[in-house]
């Protein structure tokens, strides 16, 4: 499997707009593809990101900004990189370290305890707090919680700023980002992808990275490989700014989110909605009356912010694999393709996932983490009807 970067091949020319090819073309300008391209550009590789719309306008610009994924094999790298990202990128990400999580019942507490235990096993500290201690460190909290944890790890960042930081940093390192350009096919030659076919014509490449979020499976299918991903919608609300708490990374009560560095409370949670890829066509992700259920839980989490006014809501389309874990793998055929889709936790992990993808591209394997659990082979023999069997389908019109 280990393979050095392959020899360059002849690239097709004579395209409609003649976009010069690149050594590596990355399909998808979300956090995953952008980070990968940034790592590649930093390594001195000629890289081009092709994005159908605007960078980060998919889930990557619509998420909770959480960077605390203890159960992931990329966790240690995630934690190592985030505190350095502003400096490495040269643009602000608003990364803020640490998290506090608040539970209102035993079931919630059990979930929180798992982060504590997993972190502890890897040498990351957290402290259990009772309701009184929580109120001391979280000024907006009130009575009613049963306890929680203060993790001296994890954190949160601003997704909008982070995706654009990747895009600008790619350009600073000599890479290119092509927006408003859709990839609809690939050209093969000698068992390798030699060009991506786009709405702006053919663009040559030596290596290809597919990081197209919910569309990853559709694109790999063109290359004869199934990557099972199902799209779903999740939504969030945001309030007007409030005075900053000492630590903005507070969530719990079944919510994820943060107080932004500007002071807004941005939170999401609750049921998601499944649908088909075709349903997403030309659709801005709609938020729904679920805002009211989210608002209720935010008001419970922060009784002292109950007067804060909600000024917006939004939704995002998320990619999910059958076991809820990412795919970061090199295809066996064609051999010059790396596929990455993050199964709903791709923002926080993006500094690390991009690094892993870069190593897969340049060295054929990831040297800093064991990615065997992200291998595509685990889905060999997957029932083609897997979505229906899980009930991951659109609500039937008549039940």
């Amino acid at each position, binding site marked *: 499997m280990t393979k050095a970067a392959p020899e360059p091949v002849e690239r097709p020319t004579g395209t409609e707009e003649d976009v010069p090819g690149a050594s590596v073309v990355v399909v998808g300008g979300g956090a995953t593809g952008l980070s990968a391209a940034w790592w590649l550009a930093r390594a001195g590789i000629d890289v081009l990101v092709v994005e159908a719309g*605007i960078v980060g*306008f998919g889930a990557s*610009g619509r998420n909770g900004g959480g960077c605390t994924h*203890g*159960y992931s094999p990329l966790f240690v790298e995630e934690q190592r990189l985030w505190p350095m990202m502003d400096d490495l990128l040269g*643009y602000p990400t*608003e990364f803020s370290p640490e998290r506090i999580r608040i539970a209102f019942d035993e079931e*919630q507490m059990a*979930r929180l305890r798992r982060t504590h235990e*997993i972190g502890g096993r890897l040498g990351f500290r957290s402290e259990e707090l009772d309701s009184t201690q929580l109120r001391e460190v979280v000024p907006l909290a009130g009575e009613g919680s049963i306890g929680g944890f203060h993790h001296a790890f994890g954190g949160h960042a601003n997704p*909008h700023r982070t995706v*654009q930081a990747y895009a*600008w940093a790619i350009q600073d390192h000599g890479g290119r980002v092509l*927006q408003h*350009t859709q990839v609809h096919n690939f050209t093969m030659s000698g068992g390798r992808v030699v060009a991506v076919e786009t709405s702006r014509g053919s663009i040559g490449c030596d290596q290809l990275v597919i990081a197209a979020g919910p569309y990853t499976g559709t694109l790999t299918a063109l290359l004869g490989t199934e990557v099972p991903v199902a799209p*779903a919608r999740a939504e969030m609300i945001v309030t*007007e700014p409030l005075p900053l708490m000492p630590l903005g990374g507070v969530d719990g009560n*079944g919510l994820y989110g943060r107080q932004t560095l*500007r002071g807004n409370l941005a939170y999401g*949670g*609750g*049921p*998601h*909605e499944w*649908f088909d890829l075709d*349903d997403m066509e030309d*659709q801005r992700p*709609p*938020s*729904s*009356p679920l*805002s009211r259920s989210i*608002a*209720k*839980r935010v*008001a419970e989490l922060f009784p002292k912010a109950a*007067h*804060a006014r*909600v*000024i*917006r809501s939004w939704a995002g389309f998320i990619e*999910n694999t059958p*076991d*809820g*874990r990412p795919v970061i793998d090199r295809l066996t055929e064609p051999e010059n393709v790396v596929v990455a889709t993050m*199964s*709903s*936790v791709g923002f926080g992990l993006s500094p690390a996932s991009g690094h892993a993808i870069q190593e897969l591209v340049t060295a054929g394997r990831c040297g800093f983490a*064991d990615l*065997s*659990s992200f291998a595509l082979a*685990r889905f060999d023999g997957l029932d083609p009807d*897997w979505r*229906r069997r*899980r*009930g*991951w389908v659109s*609500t*039937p019109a008549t*039940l």
Partner: protein
Amino acid sequence: MAREPEMSPAGMDRTSVSGKTPTIAEMTDLLVIGAGPAGCAAAIDAAGRGLKVMLVDENPVDFEAMNNEIPLHFGGRMTGAVRNRNAMTDAVLEGSPAIAEAFEAGVDVRLGTACWGLFVKAPTATWVDRPMAGIADAEGVRHIGFEHAIIAAGSRDMGLAFPGWELPGVMGAAAARRLATHYDALAARRAVILGSGAEALLTALTLIEAGTACAAVVEAAGAPIGPSDLISQITERGTEILTDHVVAQAEGDLDGVTRVMVAAVDRDGRHVAGSARAIECDTVVLGIAAIPAIELLEAAGCRMTFDARRGGQVPVLDSGQRTSRPGIYAIGDIAGIWPEKSTDPSVAVAEAQRAVAAILATEDRLDISAAPPEPAIDIDAYLKHWVRASVIEAAGEPHVCQCEDVTARDVLEVRPPRYLDWQAPTQKPTDLVSLLGNGPPNPDQVKRLTRAGMGQCQGRRCREQVAVLLALGAGVPLAGVPLATYRAPVRPIRLDQLAETEEQPEMTETWEGWFGIPSMWLAPWELGPDGRPLADDSDD
């Protein structure tokens, strides 16, 4: 632990929205939003034809909302009388006799009731099983289910920055008219009006009628742009019209504006040296463009288009006033603003009749009135000239977005907000070009990075200015700048009011756990070498 996620008996993922439905408090056949002339006409017409009609209007708006420039730019120029809700309800009823008529006609009229969101079933939001509107009144927040909704939410004003425009006393034209006519509570003695289109001139006349002196009409263009009869009415009343002029600065004290400095501008918007002079006034009325209040429609996913004849960004409508979303109609100012319509109420009433006829499938019996005429002016050039002269050429750097302290330069150079106190490690200026690449300027992308439009007034005072700035910065027509998106709630709503009173049990039961995929949370040591859970008892 690694079982397949839970399924309902119907074979659906129980942790999804499947099997859950949004709560609905009340149902109506037809919901009309906005009790202006268009909305009242539609409600009365529909009730007369046997429909069950609910008519909601946010007026009287409470003092706190007004103070936060919601829903209009009131600029603090309301009298203390607006604190008295009963008196304000009386004033609103007196100001619009049609509301009482609607009530007589059997319409369920709800005043002091704001609609903050329209929700319709979409391919990616099928759990919204029927169309519904989110409303907020003194009692709280509810969803109203409807078969049809006619949106007649009127207009608001384009904001325009100049040094001092954050002072109390700088207000929108629609806000000034609303306070003067509907509330009888306008606290303005002497006003300067910016803009000379039909809406601005009608506002000047309304204010004069209500006892506010009009010191001057200031117009950046070389000649007044409104209908000539309105122009002569203004000059007959002794108000001077200053063309080729802008407000260079508003000065004032804690109570707000005390005077403005006006300056002559050249064709490029540059201020002519030595031309500044003072005009005493306590109020500056922003009237350069009346903006259709499309926020509910846009947030609900109705298709929008830039149509200069109809005043800019408006919903795509057919001859029955249907939007692109089934069951949702738009009438009145929200369907388009042009001088002949502003001066003749029968145009909006005809739209109301067409919408009702479309609902009842009798529209073929109506004459479809002609499309709006070509505008007398090029609004692209007109607005660009105003923004260049007032905002870009301003001596200071006024905040275009007052909520988030964003200047024109911040927008054009895509600078991070100041509270981050960001010092770039190397001198790498960012700009629109590096952001946009090969695409059109996108206000949402700029908003995400500069925060212009992200504040608590929900972008009402800055979004059109930002769009013009982007058009100027990128060298494209205004029509080429996509509309910044709107999101529910389109009125700010307190968390504890927005909150559902009770969480549905089926919601509570499966709320936790993100996508409800147990294997997602397994640590590497809980997985086998093949990447499958060690304790796997699922079957694929």
